[in-house]
């Protein structure tokens, strides 16, 4: 198979790179073992939430954060590149209506009633920012196992620590109109696209609204027609409605996946799911081809450029062999971040583990370094969680670093093509 650019991985970084490259005029194939992280993600765009204290303004905190963490992947795109990539994302994901900016984090509820900082939220969570306090009604659906409004409301009432503004909460449970079986979120979402179901839910909700200034619901407000579902509920209730993402599968994440996938196809890119990149061939300082799996026999894909966006240790982008060796399985790139003989895991599950920060290091263009110190290959780039030096789940930086590095790698490739053509 022949393509201009092969992107390996269909998470935020891979899709970002793929779309940007396809819009830059390259024939792009995005190949991935399966759907990436997005169906499990909250759908918000985290940039920097803890460093290690709670960050109120990512823009204000990032320069100091980068000084303290010179190995962090944010260094690749720099602050300006990060801002550009976010602006690009908001435009690309326009149908989902992302809002917010880097000057101020929004504090949105978790399904257990905590508050977490994030930079951008989709339209369906626009009213979820409770950083300034508020009076909210949390409405669950009786029988829906993944959302417990009383627990959520009680915790949320305590979440805003003094002297932060007060959050007043009430919790109710609604009866689902009709049967939805054991109520998986994706089926509830689909049923909610029926206006009659919405009318019957809203009729139950309206008398309970009281003084609530906003209504929080489980994040099941439609999939394809989510904008219509959300707008209709707000109209029927006469006040803002926001989604609270919970256990996977996550509709806000799925909608984002749908949106980016559509953007890739609209730009002429190809998405090949179910196929795993196995190995690569090299000619001197250039990657010649990557072998991927098919139904019966593997096939070599020849591309001018390659972007590796396979994720970190948790998703198989980095592998730890039984002998303790860390390995990047497709290109055999050296993995950085763990000293020889260093214990990879700490004692506590939720503590930071040395293994968390391992990954690839790159040059300024985003090309992973080889054993000799320079780029492993002149046409190989890396993006997202496969990069060393970050702790996304703790920093709350996952989407920011995937977007900025995916976008940056694609910019570098498009720029080089332009130079070659000139």
């Amino acid at each position, binding site marked *: *198979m*022949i393509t201009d650019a092969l992107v390996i991985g269909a998470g935020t970084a891979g899709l970002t790179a793929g779309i940007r490259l396809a819009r830059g005029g390259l024939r792009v*194939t995005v190949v*991935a*073992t*399966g*759907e*990436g992280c997005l*169906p*499990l993600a909250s759908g918000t765009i985290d940039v920097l939430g803890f460093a290690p204290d709670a960050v109120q303004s990512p823009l204000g905190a990032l320069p100091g954060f980068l000084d303290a963490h010179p190995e962090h992947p944010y260094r690749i795109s720099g602050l300006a590149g990060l801002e550009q990539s976010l602006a690009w994302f908001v435009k690309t994901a326009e149908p989902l209506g992302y809002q917010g900016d880097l000057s101020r984090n929004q504090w949105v509820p978790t399904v257990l009633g905590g508050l977490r900082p994030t930079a951008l939220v989709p339209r369906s969570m626009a009213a979820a920012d409770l950083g300034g306090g508020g009076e909210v009604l949390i409405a669950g659906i009786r029988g829906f196992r993944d959302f417990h409004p009383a627990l959520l409301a009680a915790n949320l009432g305590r979440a805003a620590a003094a002297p932060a503004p007060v959050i007043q909460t009430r919790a109710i449970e609604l009866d689902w109109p009709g*049967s*939805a*079986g*054991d109520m*998986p*979120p*994706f*089926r509830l979402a*689909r049923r909610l696209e029926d206006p009659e179901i919405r009318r019957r839910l809203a009729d139950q909700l309206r008398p309970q609204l009281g003084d609530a200034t906003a209504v929080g619901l489980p994040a099941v407000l439609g999939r*394809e027609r989510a904008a219509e579902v959300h707008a209709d509920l707000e109209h029927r209730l006469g006040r803002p409605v926001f989604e609270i993402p919970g256990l*996977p*599968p996550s509709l806000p994440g*799925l909608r984002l996946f749908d949106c980016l*996938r*559509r953007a890739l*196809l609209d730009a002429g890119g*190809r998405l*090949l*799911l*179910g*196929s*795993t990149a196995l190995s690569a061939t090299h000619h001197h300082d250039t990657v010649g081809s990557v072998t*991927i*799996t*098919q*139904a*019966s*026999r593997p*096939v070599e894909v020849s591309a001018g450029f390659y972007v590796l966006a396979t994720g970190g240790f948790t*998703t198989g982008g980095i592998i730890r062999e039984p002998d303790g060796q860390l390995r990047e399985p497709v290109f055999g790139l050296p993995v950085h971040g763990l000293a020889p003989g260093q214990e990879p895991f700490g004692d506590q599950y939720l503590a930071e583990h040395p293994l968390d920060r391992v990954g690839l290091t790159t040059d300024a263009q985003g090309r992973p370094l080889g054993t000799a110190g320079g780029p492993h290959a002149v046409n190989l780039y890396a993006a997202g969680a496969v990069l060393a030096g970050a702790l996304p789940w703790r920093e709350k930086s996952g989407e920011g670093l995937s977007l900025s590095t995916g976008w940056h790698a694609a910019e570098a490739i498009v720029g080089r093509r332009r130079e070659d053509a000139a």
Partner: protein
Amino acid sequence: MDGMSMLMENEGMAVRPSLDGCIKCTICESACPYAAVTEHFPGPKTVGPQEERFRHGPLSADWSVDYCSGCGICSRVCPQDVRIAEINSRARAQLKEQRGIPLRDQLLARPDVMGRLGRPIRPLFNWAMGTPLVRVPLERILGIHRKAAIPKVAGRTFGQWARRHPVRPAQDRVVYFHGCSTNYFEPGLGRMVVAVLEHQGLAVEIPEQGCCGLPLQSNGNFPAARTYATRLARQLSSIPGDLPVIGSSTSCALMLKREAREILGVEDPALVDVSQRTYDIFEYLRDLHEQGRLKTDFVPVELTAAYHAPCQQQNQLIGKPALDVLALVPGLRLVELDRDCCGVGGTYGIKREKYEISMAVGDSLFSDIRRTAPDLVLCDSETCRWHIAKATGFPVIHPLELLHRAYGGH
């Protein structure tokens, strides 16, 4: 041999052990087009990796796996490479083994028998399948939904035509695997495939061939399916020379490539050999193009065509080569329909109790087609073509037919 390697040995391509890779992330459940619309199917993870652990001995955990259509989307989206659809296909066969396969499913599982029986009484058969006078009682007696699309039987089989069609001598030769549907229902498609391949300067060998066994497999009759698949592989490999085997029926090509080995566990040397050299027709044409060997003497085709890549085509993991090749045709406006499944699932949507589910699954595809309002809809799988045509009223053809037209064919 230790326990694990013995298990692997018995498992052929290691379907069942793959369930240990399941991290219960639910990505398959949110991607399953069937679980989204029916409570009868709780989702691929639930009936697959989850319930599989309870399938020991004679009793299956429940019936719901029968509501899996076998579209295979779950396996394709799984980031852990768990063979979910394959586990479920085996579980369905186990269920059928215990409880028996209804007469209807035995019939639907044998398109070659339907074709052979229908042909001598062709006018009667075609009339009967088109009139409620027959279809309503047929639904009551057999459980074949009255509105389900049933193809018309052709007068002359493709095989009959092929026997009289001399192989054009050429240096490069290929074997054509036409499948039952081309043989009995759409022989014209087969003739176009041969014309397009000969136009590339290839000699096209067409050995006698039977059914691949896919409908038997999806209806849970594994023993018969194994016999069919093995026999077909031997027929196709009867032409010496390790030639590429080119299929125009995309689900049957997948059966040869992988499913017969992975799901049925057939390890007959002929099948192993053929599986490694089977190509989907557009996969092969795209390869030719990349080698600079595809003829591009196209006449302009001023049409808008909307392409639906069926599940079994996507499960070959070859991308969408029909779009790549048709993009070369001047004048043609191609629209990619970004939907996973039309809902028919081979014979699934023909069944009385599953027809409504099938229509609900296909609804988003049908809406997209109506919104696009193309001159033609393109789809590589015959059962999907018949289902989409019946549901939307749009003409639905194999993309190869359009390519044939672009080469000036009629």
